[in-house]
C-alpha cells in the first residue's frame, strides 16, 4: 500500500460518476414536468467525459491498494476503467439520438447509466470478492431496470423480468461461491486466496466454489450454456441500452473473471483451463449456429455476442500473459464495433424498433449512405476482415492460443468465424440490395450531432485498433503484466514448444 496516495484518488472515476448521477437525478426532480430532459443527457455525457479523463489520469498513480485492501488501481484496472468510461460515453450519445423530448423517464435512464457504470468500474478494480459482489449488483440492477425501460411494449417488461430472474440466480451462484471459498481459505480477498492455496491441489469445496463463481460470471458474459437470456433481453431492451449492456458489463465481468482465475487461483489452472476451453467452444459454436437461423437483427446480434464471448474465452484458456493481453484487447475491439453497430441499429430502428427484421434493412445504404456504410463497416469488423479492430482482436487471441499449443481451439474458433461470416453477410447484402419497390421508405430522422459523434468515436476506434493497434496493445500487455503468476516473457522465437 502506498500511503502517499489519497485513497479517494484510487476511486476517482467512480466518485465522479456517482456525483454526476446524483446531479442528474436532482435536476430531473426540479425540472418542470413537460421540459425536455435532453440537457440532462448532455450533463451525463459531461460526467462520462470527466470519468474518462480521471481514468486516464489514474495511469500516473503508482499501483496499489486502498480502503483496507479492497480496491486496487493498477494497469489492469485502469485499462478497463478507460474502456468502460468510453463505452458509457458512446452509449449516452446513442441514447441522446434515439430518444425524443417526450420519452418517459429520460432523467432516470441517464442517471441509471451512470450508476451502472459505477458498479462496472468497481468490478474491475475490486480485489475483495464481497466488493465484487456489491459492484456486480449495482451494475446488474441498473441494467435490469434499463432493459425494461419501454414499459408500454409487450417485449420490454418480459425482457426485464427474464433478465432479472436469471441474473439473480447468477448472482446467487456467485455469492454462494464466495461463501464456499471463504469457508475453505478463510478470506475473501483475492491475493489472500492465492496465498492460501499453495499447491496445485485444493479441497473439493474450493473447486465447487470456483465452479460457482465461473457459472455466475458465465451468465454475466453470456457464455454458453448460460446464454439463454441473451436473445430475448436484447430484443426487448431499447437499442441504446443494448449497446451499453452488450459491452460494458461484459467487459467488467471478463475483467473480474481474469482477476479471479489468474489472481486468486493461478495454481489450480490445470482444473479451470479445461472448463474455460469447453465454455469457449460451446459459446462460439452455439452462438454462431444460433445466429444463422435468426431473422431479427437484434436477436442475431445477441447470438453474435455469445459467439464473441467465446472468442474471448479462447484467450483465457491460453494461460499466458499474451492470453490476458489478448482478452483485454478483444474486449476493447468488441466494444468499439458492437457499440457502433448498435448506434446504427438504434438510429435506423428508432427507440421503438421500427426496423426489426433483416429484410427491413434492405436498401439502407440507398436511403442513407452514411448509416448503411457505417453498418456495413461494423459488420465487416465483426466478421474479422483485416484493418479493423475485429480482425486484430481475433488474430491476437488465436496467436495466444497457438503459442500455448491450443491448435484445436484455434481451428474450431477460426472455422466458427468462417461460419459467422455467412450471417453477417446476410445483413450486409440486405443493406446493399436495392429496396423492394413496394416497401415503404422509412426515411428516418436525420442523424443528430450526438449520433455522428458516437459514430466518429466507434468508427475511428475500430479503424485505429485495426491499423495501429500498438498503443492499446502495449496498455493491454502492461495490464497483463500485473499478473505475476503467468510468465510475462513471450516464447523465445524458434524455441517454442513443438
Amino acid at each position, binding site marked *: 500500500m502506498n500511503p502517499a496516495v489519497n485513497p479517494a484518488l484510487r476511486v476517482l472515476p467512480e466518485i465522479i460518476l456517482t456525483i454526476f448521477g446524483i446531479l442528474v437525478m436532482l435536476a430531473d426532480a426540479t425540472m418542470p414536468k413537460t421540459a425536455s430532459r435532453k440537457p440532462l443527457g448532455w450533463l451525463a455525457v459531461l460526467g462520462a467525459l470527466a470519468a474518462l479523463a480521471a481514468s486516464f489520469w489514474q495511469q500516473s498513480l503508482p499501483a496499489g491498494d486502498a480502503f483496507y485492501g479492497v480496491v486496487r488501481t493498477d494497469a489492469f484496472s485502469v485499462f478497463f476503467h478507460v474502456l468502460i468510461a468510453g463505452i458509457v460515453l458512446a452509449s449516452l450519445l446513442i441514447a441522446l439520438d434515439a430518444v425524443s423530448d417526450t420519452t418517459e423517464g429520460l432523467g432516470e435512464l441517464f442517471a441509471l447509466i451512470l450508476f451502472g457504470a459505477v458498479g462496472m468500474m468497481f468490478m474491475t478494480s475490486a480485489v475483495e470478492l464481497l466488493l465484487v459482489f456489491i459492484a456486480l449488483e449495482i451494475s446488474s440492477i441498473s441494467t435490469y431496470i434499463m432493459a425494461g425501460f419501454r414499459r408500454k411494449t409487450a417485449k420490454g417488461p418480459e425482457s426485464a423480468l427474464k433478465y432479472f430472474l436469471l441474473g439473480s440466480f447468477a448472482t446467487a451462484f456467485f455469492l454462494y461461491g464466495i461463501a464456499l471459498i471463504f469457508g475453505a481459505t478463510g478470506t475473501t480477498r483475492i491475493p489472500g486466496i492465492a496465498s492460501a492455496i499453495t499447491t496445485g491441489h485444493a479441497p473439493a469445496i474450493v473447486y465447487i466454489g470456483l465452479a460457482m463463481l465461473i457459472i455466475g460470471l458465465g451468465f454475466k458474459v453470456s457464455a454458453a450454456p448460460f446464454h439463454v437470456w441473451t436473445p430475448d433481453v436484447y430484443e426487448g431492451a431499447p437499442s441504446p441500452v443494448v449497446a451499453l449492456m452488450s459491452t460494458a458489463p461484459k467487459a467488467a465481468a471478463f475483467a473480474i473473471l481474469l482477476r479471479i482465475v489468474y489472481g486468486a487461483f493461478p495454481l489450480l489452472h490445470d482444473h479451470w483451463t479445461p472448463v474455460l476451453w469447453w465454455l469457449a467452444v460451446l459459446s462460439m459454436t452455439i452462438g454462431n449456429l444460433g445466429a444463422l437461423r435468426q431473422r431479427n437483427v437484434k436477436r442475431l446480434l445477441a447470438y453474435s455476442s455469445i459467439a464473441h464471448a467465446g472468442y474471448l474465452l479462447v484467450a483465457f484458456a491460453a494461460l499466458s500473459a499474451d492470453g490476458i493481453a489478448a482478452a483485454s484487447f478483444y474486449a476493447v475491439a468488441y466494444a468499439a464495433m458492437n457499440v457502433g453497430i448498435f448506434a446504427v441499429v438504434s438510429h435506423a430502428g428508432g427507440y421503438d424498433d421500427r426496423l426489426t427484421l433483416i429484410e427491413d434493412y434492405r436498401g439502407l*445504404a*440507398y436511403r442513407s*449512405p452514411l448509416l448503411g456504410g457505417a453498418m*456495413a463497416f461494423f459488420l*465487416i469488423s465483426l*466478421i474479422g*476482415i*483485416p*484493418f479493423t479492430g475485429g*480482425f486484430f482482436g481475433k*488474430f*491476437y487471441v*488465436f*496467436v495466444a492460443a*497457438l*503459442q500455448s*499449443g491450443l*491448435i484445436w481451439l*484455434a*481451428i474450431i474458433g*477460426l*472455422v466458427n*468465424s*468462417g461460419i459467422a*461470416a*455467412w450471417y453477417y*453477410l*446476410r445483413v*450486409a*447484402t*440486405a443493406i*446493399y*440490395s436495392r429496396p423492394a419497390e413496394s416497401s415503404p421508405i422509412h426515411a428516418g430522422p436525420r442523424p443528430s450531432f450526438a449520433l455522428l459523434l458516437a459514430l466518429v468515436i466507434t468508427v475511428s476506434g475500430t479503424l485505429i485498433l485495426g491499423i495501429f*493497434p*500498438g498503443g492499446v*496493445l*502495449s496498455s493491454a*500487455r502492461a495490464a497483463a503484466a500485473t499478473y505475476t503468476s503467468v510468465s510475462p516473457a*513471450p*516464447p*523465445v*522465437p*524458434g524455441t*517454442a514448444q*513443438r
Partner: protein
Amino acid sequence: MLNASILTLITFVPTLGAIVVLLLPRRGRVIPAFALLVALVTFVLSLHLPAHYDYAQHGFQFVIDVPWIAHPAIHYHLGIDGLSLWLVLLTTFLGPIGVLVSWRAIEHRTKEFYSLFLLQQTAMIGVFVALDLFLYYAFWELSLVPMAILIAMFGRRRGPRAALKFFVYTFLPSALLLVAIIWLYAQTGTFDFVQLQAKLAAGGFASGALWWVSIAFLVAFAVKVPVFPLHGWLADVIEEAPTAMAMVVAGKLGLYSLFRFNLGLFPAQVREIAPLLVALGVIGLLYGAMVALVQTDVRRVVSYAILSNLSFCIIGIFCFALGGLNGAVYQTINEGLSGGAILVLIAFLYERYGSFDMTQYGGLASRLPMLSTLWIVTTLALIGLPLLNGFVGEFLVLSGSFPVHPGWVAAATVGVILSAGYMLWMAQRIFYGQQSSLVSERPHLDLGMREQLTLWPMAILMVVMGVVSPYWMKAIDPAMSGLANPTAAMHLTASGIAASASTPAPQGGAR
C-alpha cells in the same frame, strides 16, 4: 529514397483516391474522371519499377521493412521480385481500363463504385508486394470485401447471391490459412517471408504438422484461382459482377500466392501432392473447354474459358520444370490481359445490343468492323496464335512440362485444340453468317473514342508480349529458376540473411 517508398506509394495512392472520392460531389462525371486520374497516376508510378529493376540481382527489390506492431512481431515489409513485378504492373495497367469500361455502365451510385474500385486496387497490389505474412493476409482478405460489395450492389440480377457465394467460398478456406500462418508464427516467431523461407528450409519441424499447414495454404489459394473442382463460384461471379470486377476476380491473386507461398515455403510438400494437381489441372482444362463448347451465353463461355486457361497454368506450375513455370507466369499475365479484354468486349457488345445470347447475333463484322477486329485479335491471343502473347505461354508450358508428365500434357493439348474450337465458334456465330434481326434493327455504332482508348492498349500489349517476350522473361526466369530448383533457391535467398540454411531442403524435385 524513391526506391524505398515507391511500393508504398503505388499501394496506397488508390486508397487516398478512394477517400477523396467519398468527399467529391456527385455531379456530372467528376467522380469517374477523378478515379481515372488516380488509376493513371498509379500506373505511371508503377512504371518506375521495370525502369529501375535490377535484372542481374536475385531476391527482393524496392524493399521497405519497418516494424509495425512490436508484439506479435509484425513488420511493414514490402518488396518485389521478377514474379510480382509484372503482376503489379498488370494490376495498375488494368486500373484505368477498369475505370474506362465502367464509364457508362455505372451511372448511379458512382461514389460507392469508384471508391470501392480504388480500394480493391490497393488490396490487389498489396497482395503482390507484401512480404510479411500478416500483412499479406490482411491484403488478401481485404481484397474480398470491395469485390463482394460491388458484386452485390451492381450485380445484374442475382448480385447479392453471387456475392455471398463468392465470399463464403473464399472466406472459409482463408480462415484455415490464418490458422496455418499463426501456427508458423508460433513455431518460428516471425511472419517475415524471407526469414520463414530460410527457417523452413533449415528443417526441424514436425513433418506431419507442416504437411497440414501446406494443405491449408494450398486449398485457400486453389479456391481463389479457382482450381477444378473448387470453381463453383466462378461462373456466377463472372455473370453477375460489373465488368471491371469480373476482369480481376480470378487468376492472378491465387496463382501468385501459389507461386510465392506454396512453392516458396513448402517445396517438398508441394512436390508430393503435385501429381494430383496436374491431374486436376488437366481435368479442369478439358472440363472447362467442353462445358464452354455447349454454352450459348457469351459470359458463360468466357467464364469456362477462364477456368480452362487457369487450369493450364496449374499444369505448368505443378510440373516444376523451369519452362513450365515461366510459361505459367506468362499465362497468368496473359489471362489477366486477354481474359480482361474479352470481358470488356462483351460489355461493349451488351451495351449496344442488350443480349448475351450468341444465337441472337450474326453478321456483325460488316456493321462494326473495329469491334470485330479487336474481338478476333483477342480470340486469337486466347487460343495461342504465334506472334501473340498466348502462344508464348502455351508453348512454354507444354514444352516445359511434357518431359515430366507426358501423358497428362498430351491430354492437355487436346484442351488447347478445344479452346480454339469454342472461341472461334463464338466469334463465328456473332460476327459472321447472316445478319440477325437483333443486329439489323439496331443502329450500328462502332467503337467510340473512350472504347478505343480502353481496348487498343490491351490489343497492342498482346502483340508486343507475343513478339518481344524476352523483355518480360528476363525478370521472370530468375525468380522461377529458384522455385524449379529449391536447393539453389535457398542458397540464393538465404545468402543474403546470414545463411543458416546449412541443411538443404528435402529434395523431391529431381524427377
